[in-house]
């Protein structure tokens, strides 16, 4: 089937979409947007996190057809022009990235958190990132990056 949706502000179409295929697969394999990662395909790791009409979801658990006509934002849509988003910049500066596989998902969850709550407490950060797993960093640098991004965003 064909699906039409808005991705990162641009109207996109994908053809030959299999009816049972995930939005993650359609983004990566049909729309040339490999930023969202596939690590578990079962909602456990959060590396495929995108916004569906503004709400963070695991794109591996959304049927591509369910995204028909809707707005999707992926990690590729975070930066403005050549400028990294403050959340991305904070992850770079705080060394919150090792292999980087989990990073797109953490960026999406962090950005969403800071939009809702510009000054989160540590427990609030942990709760907001509970759906994202990282097997490299031990999370400390990620928490540093979130706190740093919050400080910048608030300024």
């Amino acid at each position: 089937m064909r699906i039409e949706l808005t991705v990162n502000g641009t109207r996109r179409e994908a053809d030959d979409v299999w009816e049972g295929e995930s939005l993650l697969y359609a983004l990566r394999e049909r729309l040339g947007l490999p930023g969202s990662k596939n690590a578990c395909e079962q909602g456990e790791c959060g590396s495929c996190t995108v916004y569906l009409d503004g709400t963070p979801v695991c794109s591996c658990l959304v049927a591509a057809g369910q995204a028909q006509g809707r707005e999707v934002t992926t990690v590729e849509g975070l930066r403005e022009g050549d400028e990294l988003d403050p959340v991305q910049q904070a992850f770079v500066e705080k060394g919150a990235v090792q292999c980087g596989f989990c990073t797109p998902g953490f960026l999406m969850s962090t950005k969403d958190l800071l939009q809702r709550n510009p000054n989160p407490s540590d427990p609030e950060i942990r709760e907001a990132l509970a759906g994202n797993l990282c097997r490299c960093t031990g999370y400390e640098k990620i928490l540093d990056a979130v706190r740093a991004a919050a400080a910048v965003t608030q300024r």
Partner: protein
Amino acid sequence: MDFLAPTSWAEALETKAAHPDALPVAGGTDVMVELNFDHRRPAALLDLNRVPELQEWSRADDGRIRLGAGVTYSRVIAELGGTLPGLAMAARTVGSPQIRNRGTVGGNLGAASPAGDSHPALLAAFAEVEIASVRGTRVVPVADFFTGVKRSVLEPDELIAAVRITPPAGPQQFCKIGTRNAMVIAVSAFGFALHPDRREVGTGIGSAAPTPRPAPEAAAFLAGELEAAGLWDSRSPLPEGLATEFGRRVRDAAAPIDDVRGSAAYRLHALSVMARRAATWAWDAYRTDDGNDGNDGNDHRSAAA
């Protein structure tokens, strides 16, 4: 495979009648895992996201909440946290933010897993499931909805329309045991509600029997003891040992198995402890509040214990 995407409730029911083998998909948090792992290849998917009626909840004149099957856990927490505290407590323990943003109470019922977290809360609240097809609508008490492991009374042409829940007249509790706080399928879970208006106790056992189930004998025992001692009115402390005996009787209502998440013996022990604690916490709340807990229209109050 077909992808069927009705845009109204009437069309959804007609589509299900015409394609009884179509698999409904709401949040997809159960269905998509099965598709991604090739565990299931339905003839068609029936997308319910575009059916506006399913995404709504409303309050009837008598105060009853009708929760559309497609309302997500995130919305239950944000919009009904104070009105349906037991269900909201259960919703807060589901998966992760991303899962709660998509997962629905209707999908939890549809999956009918013995470990579904909304089930103990719905059981304890004496909730009812509104089921519909082109043939008509029927209302089934949650306690009668589950027929076996991942099986329910749903006929092939039926869909879940909504859950009907009376906002509680007394405190509610939800307890869940898992290996960590986030992203955990319950090893066992327990829902509890005091219903001072009907002088009854509501119970719901999760992950400790082939289906979610109430503990009616334990509930009747506790309600009877409260009645006999005049405690509903006096709101005096619970007599020594009563909550413990209640926990024991809840345990006796369970029929767990050993599996990778935990042994049957551990589940039984955990249940008796959770039931004792839930009853104690709820009774403490009942003693200190105005008897109108959760029914104050304040949808944003935290229900955390």
